[in-house]
C-alpha cells in the first residue's frame, strides 16, 4: 500500500547519516515491525478536487459576506505634509514597528526579522532532535539550568530596553516551560501535553506568542506618539 509513500531509496552516493531519510523510528516502546498504515488512499479525482471545490466555495462565501458588510478603508488623499498620528505600517508589520519602538532600527528592523527568516529557512537543515523528543526528556537538571540562564539573560536584555510587550509573553511562555519541568502527582491533560513537547515546539510557540502580542498591541493599543491607549476608549 505505502509503496510510494515511505519508500527509502539508497542511491549510490547517498549517505544516510549525512542526509537521513526517515524510514521508521524505533523507540523502546515500539517494535521494529513495519505495520501497514491504517489510512486509505483515495483518488485525487474526484475526492480531492471536490473537497477543494467545496473549500473554495465556502471560502468565497465567507469572503463575499465580509466584503459586503465591511468596506475596504479609504482615507483622505495622500498628503506628504500631513502625518497622521500615529502613522502605522500595515498590520502585519506592526509587530516590527512595535519592536522599533524599543530597539534601535538596526536591531528591530533588520537583525531580528532577518534572523527569524534565516532561522525559518535553515530549520530543516539542522537535524537537531529529529525524533521530536520532549525538552526535559534527558539531562534534565543541566538543561533546566541552561534554560533558566538563557531565559534570564533574555529577560535582562528585554528589561534593559524596557521592551515590556516582548517581555510579558516571554515570561508567560517561559513560565509554562518551567511548569512542564516539574512532575506533578496528578498531572492535568494540558500539563501532560506540554511535557511531551520538544524544544522546537517551545521556541516556535514563544515566537508566535511574541509576534502575536506585538502585532495586537501595535494594531489596537497604540495611539498618538505610539503611546499606550485602550482600544475601547
Amino acid at each position, binding site marked *: 500500500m505505502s509503496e510510494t509513500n515511505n519508500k527509502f531509496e539508497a542511491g549510490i552516493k547517498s549517505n544516510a547519516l549525512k542526509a537521513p531519510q526517515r524510514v521508521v523510528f524505533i523507540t523502546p516502546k515500539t517494535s521494529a515491525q513495519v505495520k501497514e498504515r491504517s489510512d486509505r488512499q483515495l483518488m485525487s*479525482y*474526484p475526492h480531492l*478536487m*471536490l473537497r477543494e*471545490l467545496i473549500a473554495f466555495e465556502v471560502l468565497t462565501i465567507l469572503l463575499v459576506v465580509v466584503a459586503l458588510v465591511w468596506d475596504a478603508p479609504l482615507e483622505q488623499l495622500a498628503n506628504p505634509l500631513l502625518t497622521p498620528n500615529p502613522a502605522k505600517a500595515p498590520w502585519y508589520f506592526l509587530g516590527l514597528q512595535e519592536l522599533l519602538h524599543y530597539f534601535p532600527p538596526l536591531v528591530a528592523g533588520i537583525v531580528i526579522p532577518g534572523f527569524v527568516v534565516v532561522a525559518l529557512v535553515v530549520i530543516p537543515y539542522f537535524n537537531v532532535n529529529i525524533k521530536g523528543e520532549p525538552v526535559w526528556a534527558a539531562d534534565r537538571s543541566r538543561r533546566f539550568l541552561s534554560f533558566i540562564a538563557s531565559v534570564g539573560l533574555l529577560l535582562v536584555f528585554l528589561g534593559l530596553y524596557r521592551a515590556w510587550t516582548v517581555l510579558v509573553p516571554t515570561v508567560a511562555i517561559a513560565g509554562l516551560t518551567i511548569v512542564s519541568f516539574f512532575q506533578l502527582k496528578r498531572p492535568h491533560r494540558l500539563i501532560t501535553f506540554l511535557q511531551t513537547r520538544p524544544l522546537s515546539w517551545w521556541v516556535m510557540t514563544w515566537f508566535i506568542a511574541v509576534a502575536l502580542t506585538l502585532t495586537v498591541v501595535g494594531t489596537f493599543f497604540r495611539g498618538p506618539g505610539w503611546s499606550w491607549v485602550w482600544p475601547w476608549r
Partner: protein
Amino acid sequence: MSDVLATTIAGRPEESGRGEIGRRDFFNAIAAGAFGIAGLGALVVTYRYLLPNALFEPSMNFRAGTPDLYPLDSVTYMPDQQVYIVRTADGFYAVSAVCTHLGCNTQWKPEANLIACPCHGSKFKSDGTKVEGPAPRSLPHFAITLTPDGELLVDKLETIKPGQALRV
C-alpha cells in the same frame, strides 16, 4: 472544474439502490445548475463592470463665440473640437471635420474651396457634400443654436440634416 462536474453528474455506481441514485442525480443537477447560473451571472456582471458609467471626455457641446467673429462666406476650423463653423449668406452651420472614411481629420483648402482629407484623398465641399474619394458619405452637420447670451452653441451629439442653417 467542468471535469469534476461531469464526473459528479455522470459517475453513477451501478450497484447502489435506485433511491440513492435519484438523490445523487438531484444533488448533481443542483450543483451543476448553480455553477451554470454563477458562470452566466459572472459574465453579465463582468460585462456591467467593464461598461464605464461615467466618462471623463471633453464635453460634446461647445461654445463657438459670438457670430460676429465669423466673416460672411467663411469656413473656420475649430481645432479643439474638430468642427468647421461655416457662415454663408443663409446663416451658420457646423460641419464635422472628421472624414467619414476612416476618421482622419480633414483640412480646409481655401485655394481649392474644398475640404480635403490627407489620408486617402477624399474631398468635400464647404457644406460637407462629398465630391470625390473613398469616403462613403458627406460630412455630417451638427446642431447649432444661439445661447441666451448670444454665443453660438454646437452640439456634436446631435446631427441634423444639411441645409438647416442658423440665421442670426
